[in-house]
């Protein structure tokens, strides 16, 4: 998937090719994973991912999940239209390192802030890195709501996760 990301960055691959690659990767992992030792399958961290409450657009979220999985992270994909309390519960139960929030609509973007507030209320905000992304989301918006990072593309989200999770575990 690193190579897929590289091809995406240099405009040789676009969304259809990334989706096909992601499906191939998942199929391959199903075959390979059972034959690997525990050491060989050790993840780089756990990432909870989902589209925020009210948002059902999941192509971007699926691409980020696939790219992260391909880069060695364990993905807890909550799907679409995820309420803040479900993000909180999953992060707590799985001791996740990061949460990636996706929104395609300007009307659902504010839900990202609600998730961050729910993390604060649950007392776990400092234990998890929050990444945000989606077509209307901007770096400035990410800063405004107190997210740790903004990924403009699925590839950027992988680099961001890598640096955020590494800095938190260093």
């Amino acid at each position, binding site marked *: 998937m690193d190579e897929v990301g590289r091809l995406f960055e240099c405009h*040789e691959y*676009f969304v*259809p090719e990334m989706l*096909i690659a992601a499906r191939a990767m998942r199929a391959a992992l199903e075959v390979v994973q059972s034959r690997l030792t525990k050491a060989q399958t050790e993840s780089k961290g756990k990432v909870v991912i989902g589209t925020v409450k*009210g948002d059902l657009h999941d192509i971007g979220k699926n691409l980020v999940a696939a790219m992260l999985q391909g880069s060695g992270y364990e993905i807890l994909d909550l799907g679409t239209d995820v309420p803040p309390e479900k993000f909180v519960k999953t992060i707590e139960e799985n001791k996740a390192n990061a949460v990636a929030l996706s929104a395609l609509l*300007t*009307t659902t973007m504010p839900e990202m802030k609600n998730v961050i507030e729910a993390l604060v209320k649950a007392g776990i905000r400092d234990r998890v890195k929050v990444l945000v992304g989606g*077509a*209307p989301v901007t770096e400035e918006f990410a800063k405004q709501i107190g997210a740790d990072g903004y990924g403009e593309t699925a590839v950027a989200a992988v680099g961001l996760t890598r640096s955020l999770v590494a800095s938190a575990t260093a």
Partner: protein
Amino acid sequence: MRSLTSRERVMAAMCGEPVDRVANTSLVKQFCTRQLGLKFRDYNRDPQVLVESQLQTYERWPIDCFTALGFAYREASDCGLPLVWPEDTVPHPVGVLVNERADIGRLRWPAPWDGPLMSARLRAIQMFKKLRPDVAVFGAVEGCFAQALTFRGMQQAMEDLVLEPDLMRELMDFILPNEIAFAKAQVEAGADLIFVGESAASLVGRRPYVDTILPFERALIRAIQQMGVPAKLHICGNISHIMHDVAMAGADIVDIDWMVSLTEARKVFGPQVCLCGNFDPVAILLQSTPEKVREECRRCIREAGTPFILAPGCEVPPDTPAANYAALCETYH
């Protein structure tokens, strides 16, 4: 020069003829209902609500068009795609119409006046024309690729585009004459222009765009033009990698989203095509200030040359501050 009506202004601007001020055809939908405290579900199902809310928004902040569009699944719903209707946001489909290739042969597309949601748009166009014939009325159809994404499901259709392009062509072969029929009914109802929504075409590479999407776009646009009205092509997102090919679609007006330089777009589309755009609707309109909106409007006018129509790169966000929208609706020269 004499003051033009909104309709005259749009038609003159589109052809690069002199205008009394820059035409503005910002796409307002949910913004109208938010301002008036109405439900977006009603806006999309009841033409009376759509027309009333656009009229009231127009009275407060005049622009140069009414748009009889609200969401992307109107035709697909009339073909049998179940929708969930949240009270105050866009409806969304449940499932798909084409699970396997054989389903294409089983699809049934009602005549435009027989489909509840298609006929609602037709009635909205008739009402606009009756109440305000001085304002341009934009009808709308989905582009064949956008419609295929809905019929097949976005993820599967994106994969099909590369792995099974013949399946996509077969599906779009079914869609094309039906979208043409819907466009024709809208023109007969009084639409001055047809908006072709090809929202996700920017997400694909040049080869599938040219080989599979463009021929259908071109055919749909040509058919609309043969009805005697202009076609406006709207592709969301960054089209830089396919811009020369988009120019081959032959649209009279091309919406340019904010990621694309208007200066570069003018070089590609030349002096015959009307460009429409293009500042960032989120960072500028939703999140910035009236002064910044004015600054961006002036930049767009400066960079685009003519023919040109002013609008944000995509829909006016529903929660746009009124002062920012007012700044967009000011008179620009």
